[in-house]
């Protein structure tokens, strides 16, 4: 693989208008997934800094790197954080976390904070998984479903296609919308078979846009059936890398007849935000505050 079509921009961010002092409540959440890792720092429950980067082969090291990067330029050190919760696939491997909480609970809580208290349904599509979550008015999970067995309907499926078509993954969504009319979806959502089918379509002369559209269509069909299994109650929030793929988001909104909420923050940090909020609750409990 010469080019790296899967590459997306890693990022970090510090709030321009949040200040921390030694008396503030400072908590953090680290979400170590199989593909990406995020670290979020909250000061008195407000988003202070975050980082979003590719996970390496070692979860503990990825957690450390994500945290270091989030802290960079914040004037803060690890020792200034009063409680840290780890989540995601690698949650038990976050060496500086006091608790590990599942990504289901963390995504519900995080999305609730990032997209607003009207959120009742969350779709998270990460690098190697797909989660459909229903939550109540407090951001507590009432129903969930997680699929991390099958690559179809996960970011990995999209990566495979980006590689097949030699298109950077960040352009896949936009390209999929540049078709005169929506083509029929590829017939199989199994990424292995969809890939063979796509190769045949390319040989038959289909332009890349059309092939991407056909795959997006198939992927949305897969995601929608999972969502429908738990039922979709408005408002809907879409988190994870897939939220940045406009080809998937638009088709999904059309398919389920609902527009997803927007957030001013990176949709990939929802799990880490939730973890940081859990850290805050646990800290306050231990201080006898609740």
């Amino acid at each position, binding site marked *: 693989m010469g080019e790296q079509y899967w590459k997306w921009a890693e990022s970090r961010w510090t709030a321009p208008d949040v200040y921390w002092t030694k008396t503030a409540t400072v908590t953090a959440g680290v979400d170590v997934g199989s593909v990406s890792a995020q670290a979020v720092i909250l000061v008195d429950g407000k988003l202070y800094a975050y980082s979003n980067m590719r996970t390496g082969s070692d979860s503990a090291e990825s957690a450390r790197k994500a945290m270091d990067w989030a802290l960079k330029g914040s004037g803060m050190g690890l020792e200034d954080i009063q409680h840290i919760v780890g989540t995601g696939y690698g949650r038990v491997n976050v060496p500086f976390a006091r608790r590990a909480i599942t990504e289901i609970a963390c995504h519900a809580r995080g999305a609730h904070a990032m997209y607003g208290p009207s959120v009742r349904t969350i779709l998270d599509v990460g690098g190697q998984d797909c989660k459909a979550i229903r939550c109540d008015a407090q951001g507590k999970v009432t129903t969930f479903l*997680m*699929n991390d067995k099958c690559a179809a309907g996960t970011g990995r499926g999209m990566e495979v296609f980006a590689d097949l078509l030699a298109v950077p993954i960040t352009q896949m969504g936009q390209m999929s919308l540049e078709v005169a009319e929506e083509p029929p979806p590829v017939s199989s959502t199994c990424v292995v078979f969809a890939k063979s089918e796509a190769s045949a379509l390319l040989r038959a002369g289909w332009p890349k846009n059309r092939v991407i559209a056909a795959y997006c269509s198939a992927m949305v069909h897969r995601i929608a059936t999972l969502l429908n299994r738990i039922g979709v109650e408005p408002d809907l929030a879409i988190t994870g890398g897939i939220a940045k793929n406009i080809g998937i988001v638009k088709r999904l909104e059309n398919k389920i007849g609902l527009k997803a909420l927007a957030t001013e923050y990176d949709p990939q940090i929802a799990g880490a935000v939730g973890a940081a909020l859990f850290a805050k609750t646990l800290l306050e409990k231990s201080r006898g505050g609740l």
Partner: protein
Amino acid sequence: MIANYGYKDGSGEYFITLDTDRCDGCGQCVEACPLGVLEIITDDYYNVVAAVTEEHRNKIKYSCGPCKPTSRVRNLPCISACKPGAISHSW
């Protein structure tokens, strides 16, 4: 909370659903399952309830195969063992 453990792949949808509001953590289903698919856990909200083990979540189609022969009537042992009726299978 309705917890759906399992997956959907090209060959179908396979989910074991546990209603943690109905589940009282008695563990009868864990004992009844001949293949160790279920276990009792403490979830994120501190409820002691049944769940599908991490090991089996991504292969339950095959794990539960022995209890689902093709043309014979089945009484799934986990469902039969659950008095509050907290367990269901999607296939």
